[in-house]
């Protein structure tokens, strides 16, 4: 199972929630599957997906899901410490760990070698850290989102690979404004 298959598999779990999605292929694949105004697509700043999700979850009461990747987490690992120490109850961080920098030419990341993001997250202070494979992810994710008194970090181990997708044809202001309308409503 690769990232696209996993994103397809978790559509039912995430479609009604505020989702912050990682830059590049993850956002483009999610857009192709089902473009929704409650999905915030990142167009720049690799590494900050989980931080944006954290900021949103500290600001509102509804559940927030960040869909991040191993490469971008490795680029901004300190945010796991902030997530661990603040641990907003409404925040679920899903790290799709395919051991690959998918959007930059499929170079291998350190999670292929010695780095365990599960151990990093736990060491950073995150309490509820679950590593699972792609098939198990919908169930784990669903329970994490519904649990309203804990924040979760889920590391979903999948295979590398991207599908052929186009750039997202939305401008950043449009992405932001339609996303914010859902916040105002809820």
């Amino acid at each position: 199972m690769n990232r696209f298959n996993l994103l397809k598999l978790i559509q039912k779990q995430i479609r009604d929630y505020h989702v912050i999605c990682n830059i590049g292929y993850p956002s483009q694949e999610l857009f192709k599957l089902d473009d929704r105004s409650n999905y915030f697509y990142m167009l720049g700043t690799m590494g900050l997906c989980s931080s944006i999700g954290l900021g949103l979850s500290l600001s509102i009461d509804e559940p927030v899901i960040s869909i991040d990747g191993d490469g971008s987490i490795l680029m901004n690992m300190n945010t796991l410490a902030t997530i661990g120490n603040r641990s907003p109850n409404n925040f679920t961080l899903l790290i799709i760990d395919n051991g690959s920098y998918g959007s930059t030419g499929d170079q291998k990341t350190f999670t292929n070698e010695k780095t365990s993001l599960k151990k990093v997250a736990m060491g950073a202070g995150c309490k509820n850290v679950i590593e699972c494979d792609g098939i198990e992810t919908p169930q784990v994710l669903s329970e994490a989102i519904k649990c309203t008194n804990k924040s979760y970090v889920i590391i979903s181990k999948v295979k590398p690979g991207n599908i052929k997708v186009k750039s997202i044809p939305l401008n950043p202001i449009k992405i932001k404004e339609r996303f914010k309308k859902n916040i105002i409503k809820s």
Partner: protein
Amino acid sequence: MKVSKKILMILKKNGVNFFLSVPCKLLSNMISILEKDKEIIYSAVPREEEGIGICAGAHLGNKFPCLLLQNTGIGNSVNAIVSLLKYYKIPTILLISYRGTPGETVKAQYQMGSITKNLLKTMNVPTLHCNKFSDLDKISKYVVKSKKIGTPVAILCDFNLMKADQ
């Protein structure tokens, strides 16, 4: 404490309600006040670039964010300021202790100090330079501008202004 209190009073009065800080000795009074303030959301963050990301999320959640940082941290955040805050038009207050200005005791601070204003100018970030107490009255105008046009704004607070406040 006079300077710190006044700055925070102006920011809060203009709707800023979400604060993050990466520490600087010159900002320590302000950080102490924020830690105790129950009216706002506050957290420390380990690195400036991450703080920019959290500020963007706070804006999506209808908060008005402010990041306290040293000017050295602007160097750590250039891409996040430009490709996230500017690109998505996210109002954010960058409240900056301006190291490397007259009075500075650490020589290395002059390196970033000498390029900070040009860096902010290159990024097209509206910048207010405060080097005396009366300059603080201009902060309101910049906060309003940030919200109105959807841009980060930088408030640079000189070494001596902040040092005298400690």
